[in-house]
């Protein structure tokens, strides 16, 4: 699971109001090198909840001096965009789980794939 996806996921456990962001508990993390595409990163930044991204990076030990608030004029800052590219797309949680911050319910991640299914009584 990549952090771009994690940034857009929320807990859908019944009755939960503050289900975002899901807490990442990773037991295996991989970092792959992926072709840098500044255009794509620039397009995605406005869609992100920036603080949730920083929080997630912290849980994975990948904070890498990313600023806690979004810098202005980031479209022209390649060094910044490369850092965001890395955290959004290159860092992957292979094994672990996502935990609902309100209910504590855990969604397992196996072979990089989160399983978000709820049981019938949830």
């Amino acid at each position, binding site marked *: *699971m*990549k952090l*771009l*996806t994690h940034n*857009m*996921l*929320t807990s*859908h456990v019944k009755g939960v109001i503050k289900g*975002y962001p899901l807490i990442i508990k990773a037991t295996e993390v991989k970092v792959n090198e*992926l*072709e840098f*595409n500044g*255009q*794509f990163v620039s*397009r*995605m930044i406005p*869609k992100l*909840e920036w603080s949730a991204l920083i929080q997630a990076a912290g849980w994975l030990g990948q904070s890498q001096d990313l600023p806690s608030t979004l810098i202005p004029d980031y479209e022209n800052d390649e060094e910044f965009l490369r850092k965001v590219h890395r955290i959004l*797309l290159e860092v992957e949680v292979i094994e672990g789980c996502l935990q609902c911050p309100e209910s504590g319910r855990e969604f397992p991640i*196996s*072979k*990089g*794939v*989160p*399983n*978000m*299914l*709820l*049981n*019938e*009584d949830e």
Partner: protein
Amino acid sequence: MALHCGRACRQYLLHLAHDNVDFRLPEIKALLSLRKRPFDTSETFNEKSPFWQLNGLSEDDIRSVMSRTVCGKSAFELWGHGTTIDELRTSLLEYPAENMAPYLQQNSTYKINVYTFNKTLVFKDRIEKIDALDFLPFKGTVNLKDPEHIFCLLEDYGSDPNDIPEEPFHMYFGRWIADGQRELIRSYSVKKRHFIGNTSMDAGLSFIMANHAKVKADDLVYDPFVGTGSLLVACSRFGAYVCGTDIDYNTIHGIGKASRKNQKWRGPDENIRANLRQYGTESLYVDVMVSDASKTVWRKNAQFDAIVTDPPYGIRESTRRTGSHKDIIKPPEDFSGESHVPVSMAYHLSDIFADLLNFAAHHLVLGGRLVYWLPIYRPEYCEEMVPLHPCLTLTNNCEQTLSSHTSRRLITMEKIKEPEDSDRLAHLADPRFTPYQGHNSFREKYFCGLTKKNGKDSKATPKNKD
């Protein structure tokens, strides 16, 4: 007309392939729309014809369309046309000589092809037709193998293979610009793909879907019924980053029984990511997840540029969702080991589409498109069956016949406004927004139609009661 025009007045001729006929115009329109250009053609435009004249475009516009289309075979800069050889000749003599000159230079090489639609010509006749064009000021040398410029005489002999006229109805002559992407239909064929399932979308249609959805490079595209990822493969070919979800754990993880004839179980390299790797687009793979499309996992304001999907019809893949219900359905038989899906209940087809449209209204960017297949029982089809939503406008509705009594329609919708609270009650004010319930018995009607065809008396009992 012998007007002196700049490049913008050029006319182009599109030569289209003769399959998926109903899907062609929406595809070309969508691709022109990506260039912010309208579809502008002649008054004699006939959508069923394989030859379309396009006005008001630049050569770059044409090249851009041809770099994406799987419906278009080739595109030409149109130098002349007519319903008789004399009309063609007059038309060609009127075409500005200065527009022709750059391609007829003395030190250049060229060749002339003859293409006849709905007729086969012998070699001798082809040569005669080329010779009849020698009034054109060709100064270069003919090179059949590797010419710098290619010209084409295209003749339309109508659409009735049982009534082929002596002379063509229409003739066109132009300079070849580019070919379309029909080669992708072969190179992306599902037969050669590493990971397939029972309902993997055929390559041609998946590219058509990506085009109808106006997918472009650096988009983020989502498929909520991703299966084996065929639609994501096509979207990634056009440079989009892709993600998908599916309720079926085995398919997402690429385990369980294989769909190939001689194969029992899936191999280790069979999953959606491997499919993208096969075509060199693994860098565009974002994620796939196991998830129930009826219980969205995306936060408010999570938005995709396009949603491209093929929801289950309840025929080859069952329609399922999680939840408790009095009539509990037995889990599907083909699972390896423990069941990963909590108690399944039937996901009514009409709910699938209502949920899908509602999801699209919330999770598409403004102007973004939803493209999906809607299964139809043909004897009962009426426009009211096509689901509507106050935030989405219906752009295309193209039918693909599956049998005498069933078809599926490729629906394209575009988001025109953000959802408001009042939209949830829209169906009370306007009956068009009430989900059509007739879809739910699609599976019954599908099998009922089949057994009638086989001459059996008893109605087939469907596995999942809809």
